[in-house]
């Protein structure tokens, strides 16, 4: 009969009502607490804001700025966080780091050891933003933690790079040599030149992602001092690395000897034709113009597009394009010439 089932169903119903009640009460208490706490923090921030603002602009310390309770420290943290986004002058940034060190060091040391992933991540971000380089060792110790997430690892290495951690080169080349290109780039960008040079010297022995990242960082920073290094890679490597070096040269816009790059305009790979066309345009090298005009007829859309752009960069670029538009029989070349002639009108 159904009576047994009825009993079970009734019990289930009661259980569900119970669960619902618990969730509701929990949610209501939580919300009420949250509102109360954030009000108190806001109140505290209002009191502290003028004090902190004064310390940051003029230096010194204030006795009224106390951080005895967690709530007060939270208020200070939030205020400092706001200021990191607006401060420009070096001395002000230093004062901010000093303030953070004074009030938040103990908390952060504890939080780095927290069981909760999000707490550790937030702390890492704050340490980086506030420039708390006296916590360098604590951050480094976190690397030894068992079950470290990949995101944490990358962030730690980033902070170590930013704080000029000596053995970072060893770490990256020996222990953590399987990062992605993007992650390496993220770390290398934060290095100062002396440390970065270590990676440049070790370039030939590095894995491919690291090599690509090194070349990219030079290209991003537009470092003229690495010009011969880039040209060296261009002539000694092939494939993706060679292409990256070429790209970096095109960004920097200077080479010692133009000949090899003119030859590359005839490469069988469309990527190489495209980037060498870009370089020729940037250098405004007259010798390359006839070939650029030929490249307007290239079979690859990207090469045609780049050739059009490069020709545009020459003083008489528009005339050249007009000539192509009038004289060429190739409709693709005509389309491209037409597009660059009408760009931005």
């Amino acid at each position: 009969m159904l009576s047994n089932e009825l009993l079970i169903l009734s019990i289930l119903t009661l259980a569900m009502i119970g669960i619902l009640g618990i969730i509701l009460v929990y949610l209501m208490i939580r919300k009420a607490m949250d509102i109360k706490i954030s009000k108190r923090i806001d109140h505290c921030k209002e009191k502290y804001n003028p004090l902190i603002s004064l310390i940051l602009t003029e230096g010194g310390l204030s006795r009224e700025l106390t951080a005895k309770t967690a709530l007060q420290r939270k208020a200070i943290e939030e205020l400092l966080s706001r200021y990191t986004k607006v401060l420009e002058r070096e001395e002000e940034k230093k004062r901010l780091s000093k303030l953070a060190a004074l009030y938040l060091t103990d908390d952060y040391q504890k939080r780095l050891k927290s069981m909760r992933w999000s707490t550790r991540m937030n702390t890492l971000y704050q340490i980086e933003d506030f420039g708390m380089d006296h916590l360098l060792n604590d951050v480094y110790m976190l690397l030894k933690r068992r079950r470290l997430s990949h995101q944490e690892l990358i962030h730690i290495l980033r902070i170590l790079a930013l704080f000029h951690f000596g053995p970072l080169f060893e770490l990256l080349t020996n222990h953590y040599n399987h990062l992605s290109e993007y992650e390496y780039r993220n770390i290398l960008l934060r290095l100062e030149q002396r440390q970065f040079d270590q990676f440049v010297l070790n370039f030939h022995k590095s894995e491919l992602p690291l090599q690509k990242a090194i070349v990219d960082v030079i290209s991003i920073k537009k470092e003229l001092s690495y010009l011969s290094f880039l040209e060296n890679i261009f002539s000694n490597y092939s494939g993706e690395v060679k292409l990256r070096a070429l790209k970096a040269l095109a960004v920097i816009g200077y080479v010692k000897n133009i000949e090899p790059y003119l030859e590359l305009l005839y490469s069988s790979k469309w990527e190489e034709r495209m980037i060498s066309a870009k370089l020729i345009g940037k250098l405004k090298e007259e010798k390359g113009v006839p070939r650029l005009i030929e490249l307007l007829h290239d079979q690859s859309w990207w090469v045609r597009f780049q050739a059009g752009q490069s020709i545009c960069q020459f003083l008489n670029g528009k005339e050249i394009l007009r000539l192509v538009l009038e004289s060429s029989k190739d409709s693709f070349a005509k389309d491209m010439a037409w597009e660059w002639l009408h760009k931005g009108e």
Partner: protein
Amino acid sequence: MLIIQWDDIVTTFAWGIAVYMVIVIFFYSVILVISMFQLRKEYKLDRVLAYEDYLDEIYTKPISIIVPAYNEEAGIVHSVRSLLSVNYPTYEIIVVNDGSTDHTLKKMIDHYDMKEIKRVVRKQVNSKPISKIYQSAIFAHLFLVDKVNGGKADALNVGLNFSQYPYFCSLDGDSVLEQDALLKVMKPIIDSNGDVIASGGSVRIANGCQIQNGQIQNIGLSDKPLVVMQIIEYLRAFLMGRIGLSRHNLLLIISGAFGVFSKSWVIEAGGYRTDTVGEDMELVVRMHRLLKEKGQRKKIVYVQDPVCWTEVPEDITTLRRQRRRWHRGLFESLWIHRKITLNPKYGSIGLLAFPYFWIVEFFGPMIELSGYIFMILGLFLGGIYIEFAILLFFLSCLYGSIFSMAAVLLEEWSLTKYPKVSDIIKLFLYSLTETIWYRPLTVFWRCEGVWQMLRGDKSWGEMKRKGVLE
């Protein structure tokens, strides 16, 4: 004799429904637990800090935002204004005017000083011809493409052909983006170094919120019961469903309202299909299929941060049309790719995601409808059936509200958007009533969608915009 047989049928039927309910509750519970773990891990993670890095041009990849517009003269200027203030280093906005019959084109040209330009457009996916291209004289990254009418999917395809950047994002004309929306959805793509080829964010409901100059000013809960019910529905769908599915790369839907895709993969898959009403879901399914067939381990993910606020229907008629259309879109996507169902070649997509969408999402409403009929029948049959029916009714009320409240709980853990205690009580009370009116209504509309389809009715209504964007 006859009576006993009748009894048997009813009992079997009751058991059938009970078993179905257990399966569904099991599915939902598993997904809920997965979502809970994920959100708990990221509990109180300061997301603003995490996104700041990506504001640097060096790290991010440029995006083309495609806005298909068909007769959107009321909202288009505002939508574009909200897009112009988006926080992202490099992007372009491409408004595709899909042969509007109103003043959409003129409004754009006048307001943003659009000037006609010449541009060679590579035809990478098939689409209707472009008539004119404009570029704004004020904002160099704002373009307007005027084309022959061909539907939303076709407009998106044109935008795809026209766009110059490696990633694109499709956006409904009536949605408001959060300032950091692009950063949020691009984060997984950048972090994974290209292993993530599409990413979507959660969509929230704008009705009841105050919006000015294309930005959300105040978050509030609407007073209209129909809207509150939809809010609960969205919370459940996004916070529970999608997080759970995305965790295991089973995501079959990236909301048409907002999602970012890798252009090269979409082009390889063939762009948007113009002959279905659910082109957004169909594309994601096709991309999954392409990945499996090519043996690629790429991913399609979901970001739980709210990225986009959209206007939902406030009256019964429009909501009914929308639900019928959705259900039909769902069926078309599943039907076009029916080969995937239970096919081990497609891995978890074929063995888990597809059966889930067939059983719970597609056939669910029909089984539920028969359940409602059974309950009513039970009342007439008298005896033990009355008690059984009443209990079943209570139970379905309660389990529905438990999942709804769990979704509210997840929302509190992750984002805490609704500011007042009274909001929570309101959400709670409404979720208790869901089974009495809202659920049967949507179930009925979705069954109607199936019925329409069987009859071969192709008409489907456009949504009437009230224009919350003003």
